[in-house]
């Protein structure tokens, strides 16, 4: 049984599965395969199946033991969304606004619902409810079992930021430049905090601090209670890369190509690591190693940000890898999927 990785950055805490894996450099590719269309979202893993979304509109279920395609589900439009697995279903959004739930084992459709515009965000599941934002400017909450709408809350801009859901609150960034906190039960806006430009970064949560980057070049730490800014940190360009939490550190990339590690309490820089590549993908922390796909695949040493190794594997890669004890699974813009061990 493989280590499960059911949603963006492993779990709803965006931990990146950081705790248990002893790290070792991958020595070889267990298998390599190709799916139809580019892969922009990140794969997820459940049991023996790796679920890989593609811009050709397929959700591909690949057997991780053989690398063979077990089945694929054809969606009506491109899938940018990182899938999310819960209660035996795989949920994902499509570019035509549909959000679809399919059976994780058979690939048959359970239900679908629709927003008014594309859904690139990952549906996040908590308490039998799936939350997702759309480019139509609304956050949706639907029943996990049926897809029936519980509530819909319109905000002031397009939503490409995957929600963070915790303690009955839904946090996300918005194209109107605000960070929002909604009541998870009703959808009512509890607070919003303005930044200097639109946001397509997905937030992370560290206790009562919400961490998120903006296209105004700043990275923000907000108090989850009222949305007050605790500190903000200036990067060289906009920030799309969703942050990863590793103990007292928050790690994120900026589009200027630098990976930043900050102290969550103070915003103080612990280290910065230039990559020479534009970073839009989230970093993944596994033990003492940070994985990052940014054209090249990088492994950094968590304590000091030194590059341990880098590898060019096919086409430019912007999704986040799945890191388990047995293997690392990567997907690329050319539709390549690798299992490294």
């Amino acid at each position, binding site marked *: 049984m493989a280590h499960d990785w059911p949603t963006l950055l492993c779990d709803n805490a965006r931990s990146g599965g950081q705790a248990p894996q002893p790290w070792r450099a991958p020595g070889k590719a267990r298998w390599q395969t190709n799916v139809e269309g580019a892969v922009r979202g990140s794969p997820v893993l459940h049991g023996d199946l790796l679920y890989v979304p593609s*811009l050709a509109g397929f959700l591909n279920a690949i057997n991780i033991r053989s690398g063979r395609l077990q089945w694929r589900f054809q969606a009506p439009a491109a899938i940018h969304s990182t899938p999310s697995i819960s209660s035996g279903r795989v949920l994902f959004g499509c570019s035509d606004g549909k959000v679809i739930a399919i059976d994780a084992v058979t690939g048959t459709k359970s239900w679908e619902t629709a927003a008014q515009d594309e859904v690139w965000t990952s549906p996040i599941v908590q308490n039998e409810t799936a939350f997702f934002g759309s480019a139509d400017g609304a956050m949706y909450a639907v029943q996990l079992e049926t897809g029936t709408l519980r509530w819909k809350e319109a905000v002031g801009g*397009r939503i*490409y930021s995957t929600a963070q859901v915790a303690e009955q609150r839904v946090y996300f960034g918005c194209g109107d430049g605000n960070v929002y906190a909604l009541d998870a039960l009703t959808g009512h806006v509890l607070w919003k905090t303005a930044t200097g430009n*639109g*946001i*397509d970064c997905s937030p992370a949560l560290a206790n009562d601090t919400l961490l998120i980057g903006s296209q105004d070049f700043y990275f923000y730490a907000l108090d989850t209670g009222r949305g007050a800014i605790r500190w903000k940190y200036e990067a*060289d*360009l906009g920030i799309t890369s969703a942050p990863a939490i590793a103990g007292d550190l928050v790690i994120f990339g900026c589009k*200027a190509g630098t990976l930043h590690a900050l102290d969550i309490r103070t915003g103080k820089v612990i280290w910065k690591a230039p990559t020479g590549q534009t970073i839009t993908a989230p970093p993944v922390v596994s033990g003492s190693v940070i994985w990052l796909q940014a054209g090249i695949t990088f492994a950094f040493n968590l304590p000091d940000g030194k590059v341990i190794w880098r590898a060019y594997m096919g086409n430019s890669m912007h999704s986040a890898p799945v890191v388990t004890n047995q293997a690392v699974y990567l997907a690329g813009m*050319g539709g390549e999927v690798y299992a490294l061990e």
Partner: protein
Amino acid sequence: MDRRAFVKRSCLGGVALLLDQLGTSPAYSQDLIPPAPPIHVNEPEAPSVSALRMPGLYPGRVVEISDERSIVANRVSQSIVRQMIEQGMCELTGEKDPRLAWSKFIQPQDTVGIKINSSGAPACCSSPELVREIVAGVRSVGVPVRNIYVYDRYAYEIDIGSYQALMPLGVRVTGVQEHKLDASGYDPDVFCEANFFGEWDTRSYMASIVSSGVSKIINVPTMKDHSAAGVTGCLKNLGYGTFNNVDRSHRRPFSFTDPLIGIMCSVEPLRSKAVLHIMDGTRMVWHGGPLTQNPDFIFPAGLIMVGTDPVAMDTIELEKIEAKRSKEGAPSVWSRDPASLTNNGGAYFQIASKNLFYRQPHHIAAAGKLGLGISDRKQIELQTTRSA
């Protein structure tokens, strides 16, 4: 069944333009650039010639609005850019009301494509702030927001620029192709055909969004040096940003951007639909274009240019980039010194005296010869104004 009628014109401009270059550009007589092959164009018959067709309503006229507050600490100011665009539109058209200025080009029933330049994202691309103001201008004349497309060739470059999140609600943000080999977004009936270097695929097809998706195009290039074309401005953003398979026109150190850029811009319906050009000069790339991310070569020029004549605008752009390169001690884009050539992309992105190709800035004058606008500097009316 597609009942559109198509004509084939064997565009002999390639040969004719080369002869013209020898006559007008001393630099061309100093190098060994091979002659351009004939370029064949397959295009729909234009039912009528619109007054808006390039060079449009104001041939030879360029309005430049500058304001150093438009870019501060590498951030573009929404409010200052708003003032600049409104002022530029009014000065170009002579109207006092920006809405009336926009209505010279766009009608409520139009489907409008805003052709951005995302190829240098994130460091230098069409500013989302400027594009938002253009969207506002288009909406001001009554175009429904769902009939406005912000587009470019490569979806992943749009993605890096975060345009999806940063555009107003309802605007459609779309890339013609998802990856290098994706041809599904192109019209098989409209193409340019030429064999430059013995390549196996000799056609470049027009994007379907241009041939049949939109009725008007607003072109939003950036102000950049270009390793092959000399500069990339209105013409290159429009021509090479509309047709696929254009990389084949370069093979180091040679490039056939001259005359291919101009010929592509002359193909219908692109020529008729591109009614307005708004050049984003808030940032200027004076070396390393079009893809550089090196901040040493990106200058906060703090200006925008507005016009309908892409040749005149690119002539002014070329003048500005030449001036900046000269000030920085970099060779002219007209230079044909073989010693400046390198095959090392890393060197090109770090050293201003190095280049990958013999640049072809004469593509601008060549486009002028095709009737797309005025390249003679003496005939260009440049109106420079500081933002009010």
